[in-house]
């Protein structure tokens, strides 16, 4: 009987490392993009790009820093708004609280907040960046339609995400992807503006803007895709394994996943960025092709997860 199943410690270290890496890599990438833009702009006017770069870098870093701090401080509110979750009443839901509390006691963890999404479908997610903001959100459907053992498995899965620091890494990446998505959108708009506007007096300048917009957009999308892949989908398997280790009932979680896979769609959830948080993808598939879905899926196929759980 060992304290932790093999791989958990490694996963925690890896996640902490990746979080720090993201925090360092993101400003670096941003500055590189800024330099590229400044370089192309200045080349057309023939001045020194370094001066402009040094002048604009603090403003860009400051702006992004403020954005990041606001997102860091307010992420739980934003996520709750995006998913429509509310605090779960303790007196009315003793069963859920007992399950969460007992799992936390057995892991020696501080208890996260418990939220509910008033939706009849079955889904759940964890979020947060520290002991104060860690939370587990459950849909009304998952609370009502799963029995105690199954719900315990789902909660243990979410608790493992918190314990593994998966959630913190995800939040950091969601904030960064959000910033890039914003930049990309900005670039697209200026592209459309430049394209649809009547041929201006300075056609050379608008050509430069178009080029820059394309570069920024391409890089932003590329990076956001990289980030999504960088955050390994293996974490779902690890969280399943962690849950099985905590509850000693892998079959109960397998049953729960089977029930969840029948109806994981939460109508309120619009954003694909938030979708990565859930135990199973809450968004309906927009693509017919299975391989496309698999490549860009936020979650591994649930059949595979059930199969692995049943081998325990």
């Amino acid at each position, binding site marked *: *009987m*060992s*304290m932790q199943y093999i791989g958990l410690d490694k996963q925690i270290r890896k996640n902490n490392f990746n979080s720090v890496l993201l925090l360092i890599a993101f400003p670096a990438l941003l500055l590189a993009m800024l330099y590229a833009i400044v370089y192309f702009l200045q080349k057309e006017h023939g001045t020194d790009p370094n001066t402009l770069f040094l002048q604009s870098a603090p403003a860009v870093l400051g702006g992004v820093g403020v954005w990041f701090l606001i997102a860091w401080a307010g992420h739980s509110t934003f996520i709750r708004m995006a998913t429509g979750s509310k605090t779960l009443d303790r007196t009315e839901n003793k069963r859920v609280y*007992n399950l969460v*509390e*007992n*799992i936390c*006691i*057995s*892991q*020696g963890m501080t208890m996260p907040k418990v939220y509910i999404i008033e939706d009849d479908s079955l889904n759940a997610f964890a979020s947060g960046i520290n002991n104060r903001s860690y939370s587990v959100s459950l849909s009304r459907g998952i609370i009502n339609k799963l029995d105690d053992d199954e719900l315990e498995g789902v909660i243990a899965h979410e608790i493992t995400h918190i314990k593994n620091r998966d959630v913190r890494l995800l939040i950091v990446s969601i904030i960064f992807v959000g910033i890039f998505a914003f930049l990309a959108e900005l670039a697209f708009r200026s592209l459309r503006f430049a394209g649809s506007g009547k041929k201006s007096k300075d056609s050379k300048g608008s050509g430069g803007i178009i080029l820059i917009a394309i570069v920024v957009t391409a890089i932003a999308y590329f990076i956001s895709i990289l980030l999504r892949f960088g955050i390994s989908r293996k974490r779902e398997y690890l969280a399943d394994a962690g849950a099985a280790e905590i509850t000693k009932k892998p079959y109960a979680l397998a049953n729960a996943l089977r029930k969840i896979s029948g109806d994981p769609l939460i109508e309120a959830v619009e954003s694909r960025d938030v979708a990565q948080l859930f135990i199973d993808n809450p968004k309906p598939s927009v693509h017919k092709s299975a391989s496309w879905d698999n490549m860009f899926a936020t979650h591994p196929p649930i059949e595979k997860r059930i199969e692995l759980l049943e081998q325990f």
Partner: protein
Amino acid sequence: MPVLIVVGVLAVIAIWLVSLYNGLVRLRNRRQNAFADIDVQLRQRHDLVPQLVDTVKGYAGHEKEVLIKITQARTAAMAATTIDGKIVAEQQLTTALAGLKVQVEAYPDLKANQNFLQLQEELSDIENKLAAARRFFNSATTEYNNSVESFPSNLIAKNFGFKREIMFDLGEDSRKQMEEPPKINF
């Protein structure tokens, strides 16, 4: 130059020994902290027992023996001060309470009593939490014991008084396997 190398090697060894020692201290402290979680539940159970005894008394007067046993076990459990002492005393209380659960089966009036039902629910709630806290405590103990017994940290453990500690379990068998059973004075 050779002197420097020797000094360097000695320094590395010293740092390594210190980190082994600190690792043992950390694990021992974690076990003690884990027991604090258990203590919270134990205290709640102690608070609940007199109410339970009072309620049962009214319906099942001639089960005096069971009730006395429970009260005695509770008193002993509350008097215990060390972790090891508490573990043993609490096991007596758990056994006594389990005995009560069997006895009340013979009293349908009692089983229909609203107050009793509520107390019983609270008790089972506490015992579930106790079981969870025990799991954490036991895994912390296992980790500590592994460290105390396995090479090379066992060398440090032997010299600085780190001893193998007992688990909090309900079985009597594993208790007997312990080399030094803790001495408890009732």
